[in-house]
C-alpha cells in the first residue's frame, strides 16, 4: 500500500517540500493531487531523513500546504514503449494528444537511461547523404553521430532539420528508418510545420512526436528529451531501426534547468546556469550511437538558438564540447538570400573522416573538402581586407580567391529547399570551383587526385556544368551516380 502524505510544508517556484515522509528514494516518481483534484507528477530531487524536495513537471500553481496529497510511487520515471508508437503524437510528458487510443506498452523503461559502455560502442562510420552540399561535402553526417544545429532566432533551422529528415539516406537500403521528434517550448506553428513536412513525404507513419509547446509547463521540458531518447533507443536497439532524433529547442531545455537550479538556491555557474549543466546535457547528447551486436542506431540533431547569435554562450558552448561537431547557421548568408545558410567555417563534423573516402563516398572527398575550406577561408579573410583597402590593391591571386569565395556561396552553399544533391554532384561543384584557382594553390589535394579530377574530364565536368546552369537539372544527376546510385535508395 502506497502511503499518501498531506504534509507539504513549502512551495517555491517549481519545487515543493514534503515533511514527515519515510522510505522515500532519491529520484523516485511522485504523484500529486492538488486542492482542486488535479493530477500532477513530480520527481524527488533531494531526500533528507524525513523530508523530500520534489520538482513538479507541470508547475506548482494550485498546490497548497493543507489539502494537497502526495504519493511516492517507489519507482523512477518510466515510459511504456512499443512499436505502435510510430505515427503517434504525444505531449511533452508522454501522454497521447492525437485523439487516438492509449499505447499498450511492450516494455517499461527508465527514462534516464544508462551510459553506453564505451567498450561496447561501434565507431560510427556510415555515411548519411542528406543532399545538402555544405553537410555532405564539408561536414559529413554519419549514422550514430550527434550533430547539433547552432542557429539564431529567425534563421531557417527548422527548414534545414526538416530537409535533413526528409532527404537523409544511408548506404544500405534494408534498414527501417524512423524519426523521433522532441519539441521543447517551441511554438504551435513550428510544431505544425514539422508535422506537415513529415506528412508531406509520408514519413509521419515512421515518426514519433513529443510536443512540449511554448505554453506547456516549463519543467516538463526536463523530461521531454528523455522520453524521446528512451523511445529512440528502444526503436534502435530492440526494433533494429535507424533512428534520427531531432531535439528542438535545447535553449528552452537549458532555461528550464536554470529555473529549477535557481529555485533550489544553488550556486550559479556562468550566466546563472547551474554548474552541472555540462553533465546534465551530456546525459542527453551521449544517448546517440551504435552498439556492437545491434543493427540499429540513434543519430541526434539537436537544434539550439544561440541568444544574440553568440557561440560562446554557455548553452552553445557546453553543447559544442559534448557533441561531435556542429552546423552553424549564418545571419549574413541568410540576409543574402542564400539557403541553406550554413557557415562552413565554424561548422564541423568530428566523425566525418570515418564516413568518407574510397568505398564510402569517393577517394578525393577529404582532400577536396579540406582544400575548399582553406580556399574559402582565405577568400573570406580577403573580403575584410578589401573593405579597408579596396579591391584594386589586391594581386591577381588574391582576386581569384575573392571570386572563389563568391562562387562558393552562390553555387555550392546555395541550393533549393527541395534540392537533393548526390555526393558526387556536390564533389563536382567543388571541383568546378577549384578549377578557377592556380594548380599550385591546391596544396591539400594529392597529385593523383589532381590528375584524375582536375582535368576537364567529361564526366565530372558534366556534373559541374549542370550545376552552373541551375537547379532545373537537379534531378538528372541521379543517373550519373553510378557509384552511389546502386546503394542509395530513397526512403519511403
Amino acid at each position, binding site marked *: 500500500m502506497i502511503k499518501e502524505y498531506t504534509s507539504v510544508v513549502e512551495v517555491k517556484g517549481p519545487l515543493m517540500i514534503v515533511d514527515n515522509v519515510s522510505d522515500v528514494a532519491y*529520484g523516485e516518481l511522485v504523484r500529486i493531487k492538488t486542492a482542486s483534484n488535479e493530477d500532477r507528477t513530480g520527481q524527488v530531487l533531494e531526500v533528507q531523513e524525513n523530508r523530500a524536495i520534489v520538482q513538479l513537471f507541470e508547475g506548482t500553481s494550485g498546490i497548497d500546504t493543507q489539502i494537497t496529497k502526495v504519493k511516492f510511487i517507489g519507482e523512477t520515471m518510466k515510459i511504456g514503449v512499443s512499436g505502435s508508437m510510430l505515427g503517434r503524437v504525444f505531449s511533452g510528458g508522454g501522454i497521447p494528444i492525437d485523439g487516438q487510443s492509449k499505447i499498450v506498452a511492450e516494455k517499461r523503461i527508465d527514462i534516464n537511461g544508462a551510459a553506453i*559502455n*564505451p*567498450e*561496447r560502442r561501434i*565507431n560510427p562510420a556510415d555515411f548519411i547523404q542528406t543532399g545538402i552540399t555544405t553537410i555532405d561535402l564539408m561536414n559529413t553526417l554519419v549514422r550514430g553521430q550527434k550533430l547539433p544545429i547552432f542557429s539564431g532566432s529567425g534563421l531557417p533551422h527548422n527548414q534545414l532539420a526538416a530537409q535533413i529528415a526528409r532527404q537523409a539516406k544511408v548506404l544500405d537500403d534494408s534498414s527501417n528508418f524512423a524519426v523521433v521528434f522532441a519539441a521543447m517550448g517551441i511554438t504551435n506553428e513550428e510544431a505544425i510545420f514539422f508535422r506537415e513536412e513529415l506528412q508531406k513525404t509520408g514519413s509521419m507513419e515512421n515518426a514519433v512526436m513529443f510536443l512540449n509547446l511554448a505554453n506547456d509547463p516549463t519543467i516538463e521540458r526536463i523530461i521531454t528529451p528523455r522520453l524521446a531518447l528512451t523511445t529512440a533507443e528502444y526503436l534502435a536497439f530492440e526494433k533494429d531501426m535507424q533512428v534520427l532524433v531531432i531535439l528542438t529547442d535545447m535553449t528552452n531545455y537549458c532555461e528550464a534547468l536554470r529555473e529549477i537550479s535557481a529555485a533550489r538556491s544553488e550556486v550559479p555557474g556562468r550566466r546563472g546556469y547551474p554548474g552541472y549543466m555540462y553533465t546534465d546535457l551530456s546525459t542527453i547528447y551521449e544517448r546517440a550511437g551504435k552498439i556492437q551486436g545491434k543493427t540499429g542506431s540513434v543519430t541526434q540533431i539537436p537544434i539550439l538558438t544561440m541568444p544574440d547569435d553568440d557561440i560562446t554562450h554557455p548553452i552553445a558552448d557546453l553543447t559544442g564540447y559534448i557533441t561531435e561537431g556542429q552546423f552553424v547557421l549564418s545571419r549574413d548568408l541568410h540576409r543574402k538570400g542564400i539557403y541553406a545558410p550554413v557557415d562552413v567555417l*565554424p561548422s564541423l563534423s568530428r566523425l566525418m573522416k570515418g564516413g568518407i573516402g574510397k568505398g564510402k563516398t569517393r577517394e578525393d572527398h577529404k582532400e577536396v573538402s579540406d582544400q575548399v575550406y582553406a580556399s574559402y577561408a582565405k577568400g573570406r579573410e580577403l573580403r575584410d581586407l578589401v573593405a579597408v583597402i579596396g579591391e584594386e590593391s589586391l594581386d591577381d591571386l588574391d582576386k581569384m580567391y575573392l571570386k572563389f569565395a563568391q562562387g562558393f556561396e552562390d553555387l555550392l552553399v546555395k541550393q533549393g529547399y527541395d534540392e537533393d544533391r548526390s555526393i558526387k554532384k556536390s564533389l563536382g561543384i567543388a571541383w568546378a570551383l577549384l578549377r578557377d584557382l592556380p594548380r599550385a594553390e591546391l*596544396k591539400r589535394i*594529392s597529385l593523383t587526385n589532381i590528375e584524375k579530377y582536375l582535368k576537364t574530364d567529361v564526366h565530372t565536368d558534366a556534373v559541374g556544368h549542370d550545376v552552373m546552369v541551375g537547379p532545373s537539372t537537379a534531378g538528372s544527376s541521379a543517373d550519373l551516380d553510378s557509384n552511389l546510385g546502386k546503394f542509395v535508395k530513397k526512403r519511403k
Partner: protein
Amino acid sequence: MKPRISVISGPVVVADNMAGAKMYDVVRVGKEKLLGEIIQLDHNKAIIQVYEETTGLAPGEPVENTGMPLSVELGPGMLKGIYDGVARPLSELASQSGNFIARGIQANSIDHEKKWDFKPVVKSGDEVKEGDILGTIQETTLIEHRILVPEGVSGKVSGIKAGKFTVKENICKVGKDSVQMSQKWSVRRPRKYEIKHKPSVPLVTGRRIFDTFFPIVKGGTAAIPGPFGAGKTVTQQDLAKWCDAEIIVYIGCGERGNEMTEVLTEFPELTDPNTGKPLIERTIMIANTSNMPVAAREASIYTGITIAEYFRDQGYNVALMADSTSRWAEAMREISSRLEEMPGEEGYPAYLASRLAQFYERAGLVTTLNGNQGSVSVIGAVSPPGGDFSEPVTQNTLRVTKVFWALDAPLAYRRHFPAINWLTSYSLYSDILDEYYDKNVSKNFNTLRRKAMQLLQKEAELQEIVQLVGPDALPEDEKAVIYITKSLREDYLQQNSFHEVDAYCSMSKQNAILELILWTYDQTLLAIKDGIKVSQISALPVNEKIARVKYDKDAEKEIDNIRKEFESAVSKLEGSL
C-alpha cells in the same frame, strides 16, 4: 547503531553513525553496495561522494566502511585495457551488465585467473628492498612488465623460481612477507621515488610545430587549452599515437564515448614508428565519459596518474594524456557545490589551484627506488568556456605547466591543423633542449628554429600594415618575408594527421624541410638584390614541390632536386632581366 544513509543529493550522500571512519575511506553505500568515498567528516556524520548513479537510494539504507582508501590494483594485465574512472575494466562491466553500465558491479582491475610466465631476476638469498625488481613478465610483445617489491617490504628473498603464476599467487618470500605480483596503491597518494631530476631529453612527438618550436621533455608538463572544435582531442590522440614514450596512459575524462571507441578501434591497427609493433600494446585507457558518474570522473585523473607512476617505477618513460582536465575541475565544482562550500572564482572550489598543482607535480623525471630512471610526462587538455583563456582552470594550469600549446579557433576554421597559435604558445624547455638538438639533430637546427620563429613574428607585424595599406605597398624585402612565412605556415606548420607519410615527421626530416624553406628565403633575398621581384619567385612552379615535400617518404633526396630546380629557375629569371 549501524551506519546508515540520512541525506541524498545527487552524487553526494550523508551517512550517520560513522564514528571511526577516516577521510578518503572507501565505503559501500545502500543495498546495492554502490562505491563511494568519504570526503568530509562532521562528528559521526560522513559525507560521501558516490561513484555510481544514486537514483533509488533511500535514507535508512546501510553504509559499509571498508576502512581502505580508494586504491587501484597494479600488476600485469593492464596494458591494452580500458577502465572506468575507478579502475574497473570496461570489458568486465560489459560481461556483467551488457551494453549499458549498471550499478553496484564489483570488478578487479586485473585478471586474477590468468597465469603469467614469471622470470626472476634475483636469486634466493639476495637482499632486496622496496621498489626493487624481483622478476619480469613479457606482458605484450612490446612491454616487459617488471615486478617490484611492494611498499614496506624488504629483506632476503627466498623460494623464488620461474614459472606460471596468477597475480594472486605467491612468487617468493621477502623477509617474512609473501609477495604476489599484484599490489594495491591508494590513488591520491603519489608513489615514491628516489630523486627528481631536471629533464633534458625531448619527448619527440613527430609533430613539427611541437618538436621544432614548442618542445616538451620526457618528464615535462604541457597544457593544451582550446575552444571546442579546435582539435584538442585530435592533438592528444596524435601524441598518444606518435610520441616516443614507452607507455601511454590515455584518460578520457568526461569526454565523448565515441571518441574512446575511436581510439579502441584505431590503435590496434596502427604501428609504433619506433618499434613497428601495434600501438595498443603500450597503451592503457581510462574512459569515464561525460554521462558516466561525475564523482568517478573526479577520481579518473588520480587513477590514471597512479598507473603511470607504477610503470615509471619499472623504469619506463610514460606519457599521460588527460582529456579534459576542465571536466575534472567541473566534477570538483559539482561536488563542492553539493557540499555547500564557499565558492571561489566562477563557482570552482577554493582548492582548485592546489589540486591542479598537485596533479601536475606528479609528473617528472626520476631515479626510481631501484636506481633506474623513469619519467611521467603529463599533457593536459583544457576546455575553457567560450574559448576564453582567462578562466580559472586555464590560468591555474598555466601556472604549473611549462609548455603552453594554444589552440586557436580561427586557425581551425581555416583547417590549419594542428591549430596551434605560434605567436601565443610557448615552451620553457626550448632552451634546455639546445644541447640535445645540437648533438642529435644537427648543429644548425637551433639557429634555424629561432630564425623561423623570428620571421613568423615579423610577419604578424607586417600583416598589420597590410591590413591598412594593402600588400602592394610593402618593399620587396618585406614581401619576401610574407612569401616565406606563407610557406612556413602552410608547408611546415600544417601537418596532416591522417596522411600516411605526413602523420609522423622525424627530427631529421623536420630539420631538412626547415633548412630548405629558410634556404629559399636567403636565395630570394639575393635574387631581389639582382632586381627580381618576389612575385616572380612565388609564381615559380617549384613552389608546389616545396609544398609537397612533407608528403614524400624520401624527402631528403627530393630536397636536393628542389634546390637545383630552384637555383636554375632563379638564374633563368636573372637571365631574362
